[in-house]
């Protein structure tokens, strides 16, 4: 459903993505792993319409994505849950979820209402803190809220940027463990960017390794998990738990 063909992106003079090819199939979870500064967030931001590619093309459901306006890309069914969660400190959990459906709010109120219930069913923890300001939630709760907010847009493709960032190992397990079920239940595909390579590869179907703006390796997630090069570079002793 999503195809990137030799996409290049610049931040000013900085050449960040140098010809990225990528493919995401219907209902698939695709992991993108790589070191700090490799360009992972830039890649997700480009798909979500925050940055414009300087070269190459991005096709979503066989059509080129409209660049320049993020909101049009949300309408097409792509939603980015950004790095560091980006919660609205003083807005309540409930408001976050309702605002997540901003583009659909006026069109189908009934369906938004149904989705609201479904999302809360998926994250029962949020159900108990609907009136709490987002800023007062714990890191794990904020991450769940960010994902829930993204789901409220009813994307066909959900982009998650480092959902495990700053979470305790047990919470990482909890969050990662939900992703597959969430994709199935909401019929959405997912691109998962992670520093926690092991967790990402255990969750995903397919994976790409991004290094300094280029894909250096890709394959089935299970195969990459067993790959020596990956083990050496990304599954070092520090990451073994």
């Amino acid at each position, binding site marked *: 459903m999503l195809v990137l063909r030799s996409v290049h992106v610049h931040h000013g003079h900085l050449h960040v993505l140098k010809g990225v090819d990528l493919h995401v199939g219907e209902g698939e979870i695709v992991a993108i792993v790589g070191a700090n500064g490799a360009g992972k967030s830039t890649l997700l931001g480009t798909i979500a319409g925050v940055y414009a590619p300087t070269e190459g093309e991005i096709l979503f459901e066989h059509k080129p994505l409209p660049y320049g306006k993020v*909101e049009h890309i949300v309408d097409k069914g792509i939603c980015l849950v950004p790095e560091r969660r980006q919660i609205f400190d*003083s807005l309540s959990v409930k408001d976050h979820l309702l605002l997540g459906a901003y583009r659909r709010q006026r069109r189908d109120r009934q369906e938004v209402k149904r989705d609201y219930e479904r999302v809360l069913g998926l994250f029962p923890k949020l159900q108990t803190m609907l009136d709490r300001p987002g800023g007062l939630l714990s890191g794990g709760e904020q991450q769940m809220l960010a994902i829930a907010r993204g789901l409220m847009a009813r994307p066909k493709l959900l982009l998650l940027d480092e959902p495990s960032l700053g979470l305790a190992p047990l919470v990482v397990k909890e969050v990662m463990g939900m992703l597959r079920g969430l994709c199935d239940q909401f019929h959405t595909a997912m691109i998962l960017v992670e520093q926690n390579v092991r967790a990402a590869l255990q969750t995903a179907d397919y994976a790409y390794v991004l290094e300094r703006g280029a894909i250096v390796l890709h394959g089935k997630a299970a195969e990459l998990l067993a790959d020596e090069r990956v083990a050496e570079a990304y599954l070092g002793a520090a990451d073994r738990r």
Partner: protein
Amino acid sequence: MEAWSQFVQLLFSGLTVGSIYALVALGFVITYSVTGILNLAQGDFAMLGALLCMTFVNSGMPFVLAIGLSIAAVMAVGALFERLAIQPARRSSVAVLIIITIGASFVFRGIALLAWGTDPYALRPFTGHGALEVFGAVIQWQSVWAIVISLASFAALHLFFQRTYIGKAVAACVINPFAARLMGIDIRKMSLGAVAVSAGLGALAGIVIAPISGASYDMGMMIGLKAFIAAVVGGLTNAPAAIAGAFLVGLLESFAEGYLSSGYKEAISFGLLLLVLLFMPNGLFAKMTGKRV
């Protein structure tokens, strides 16, 4: 008893100008919170509102219609100003943007000068020329209107931001524009709306004060400056603090004028601005109130 009635008189006159400053200061705060721009043409919206309303009324239009129409017209001017002057320069430096708004202020004043000349005009009070006597002080009904209308506006805005969906979307843009954009909130539309509403608040302020102090092409300058002081005293992004700042400025001015001499009036508000900027650049109420909107 004489002293007491003088006190009440000064108190009310301070509250009256305070509520005018507060309406304009809220415009500063809303525009600044949503767009990050300090719009120094804010006071001129008050001037445009007052003069337009006066013209409409003199042409025989019913008063309420004239008020509504002039506010709508000034909101349209605000929207146009946002699209033509602010939006294209969005990525410029703060200094450039401020200079643009000063330029716009000159343009508004120039147009008003051509259309209405230099003479001040009078607008008739909303409800007759009668006055109210409180503790021996004579309070014009228009003062009561000014205070009531501004309080009603604050309440309406508060409800808008606390209770409505679109109000929360605006708040989201203020708190985290990046995240708001990712949810598909069009921040350019929000910016347009914010400037238009700020212009409308300014117009309302001008219309309410015109029966008391008249309307002229250059009235926006002083109102704008005082409201700016109020907004800065409140910390620029904090609406309740800006309102408090506006009443503080209004009361200080009124009492300085009454008890000292009228010469001290301006000195006091600008002195307050300097003190705040020097010692509490985040506003007088920064610690007391914490988070905004």
